[in-house]
């Protein structure tokens, strides 16, 4: 009986703990986070763009024809 009560108390405690997080819609926070989304996506495209340019440059350097050794 005592154990059952203890278990019930534990369940109540756990439920209360779970209730501590209040599921709430916070449009203010959402609006505040929008600039992060914009800046972040812009940042990724800029960095990847720079990498694309560098790779294109590396490829064109690597594609330069080498002087063929002529075996005579």
């Amino acid at each position, binding site marked *: 009986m005592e154990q059952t009560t203890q278990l019930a108390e534990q369940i109540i405690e*756990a439920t209360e703990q779970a209730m501590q997080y209040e599921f709430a819609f916070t449009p203010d*926070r959402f609006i505040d986070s929008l600039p992060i989304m914009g800046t972040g*996506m812009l940042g990724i495209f*800029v960095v990847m763009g720079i*990498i694309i340019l560098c790779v294109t440059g590396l490829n064109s350097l690597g594609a330069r024809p080498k002087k063929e050794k002529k075996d005579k």
Partner: protein
Amino acid sequence: MSAVFANLFNLEWQQVVMWIIGGLLIYLAIKKEMEPTLLLPMGFGAILVNLPIPSPEVTGEVSGVRAVIDFLFEIGIDSHELFPLILFIGIGAMIDFEPVLTNPKLMIFGAAAQFGIFFTLCLASLFGFDLKDAASIAIIGAADGPTSIFVANMLDSNYTAAIMVAAYSYMALVPIVQPPIIKLCTTKKERLIRMKNTGKKVSKTTKILFPIVVTIIVGLVAPDATALIGFLMFGNLIRECGVLNSLSDTAQNVLANLITIFLGFTIASKMVAEDFLRFETILIMCLGLVAFVVDTFGGIMIAKLMNLFTKNKINPMIGAAGISAFPMSARVVHKMGLAEDNQNFLLMHSVGVNVSGQVASVIAGGLILTLVGALVK
């Protein structure tokens, strides 16, 4: 006799629930072969840390199973994010960047497929999470375990364990999550688009210079991503230099396996019932799924957008591979292409997008740290 069973009365129902969760992870790892290298150690660790043993904080003991696992967490993750970074050397050594080097524009898809991260950040903020937790949850969308661990830990998130579990679970579930989204976002005609293989070869010099150049660029533009990209590219340099084959082999196999064993086990140290069994964990799992879905959507949509302006049409399915989960995502796209047309080989393109996603996800992680880190300090 009662002393033998005394510990049994310390058992709480939440711990039993965690045993079931641990058992489920082990089941998924063995029976379904879903990321077994991580889910199995995590599952076993979840059972281990939820045995009714007093925690080291209570007893003050410096030995015992919880103390050892806590110590592993402290040195391997908490102090300097050592395990994820070392694992990145192994991952870097596994990646062949040739498909993307022959066709650099594929990197655009990798960038676009990170949209899910930032979308989820906004969504998590809307659901009441504070910025550092919202950003940590969002990084699940990087579809890259080490990056998720690194960012969540750097931002000192309250939900590190749930984030890690979500990140690895969804990576394992890529073959289930992505196909319906891809089908939903593309028409049959688009899925039938054949893409020519460029057939270009990349010089060894380019392959060697690529990791060095990328490290320098990322280090200059997104300094918070330097550790991640630096270790990743170091691994790749070992692979491509051609004179360290033995080291490359060790990094790809022994080193990566060793770290993976400890990483999975260490992550489990955060799967203690009182921290894990919360409403937020379910919410985080849902948000993680949203991140994966929106990532896939972002990659496909940019491919469709590019098709409006390019002569050589792109199969939009390859955009989905930008999600980074390497190499599962590339395989999914390749298989879907073959299912539509058994002569449509998309593997080279999807692998190229996939490895670009790997780089882009690391950059996204760095940008999150830079942008959010500055606001929460």
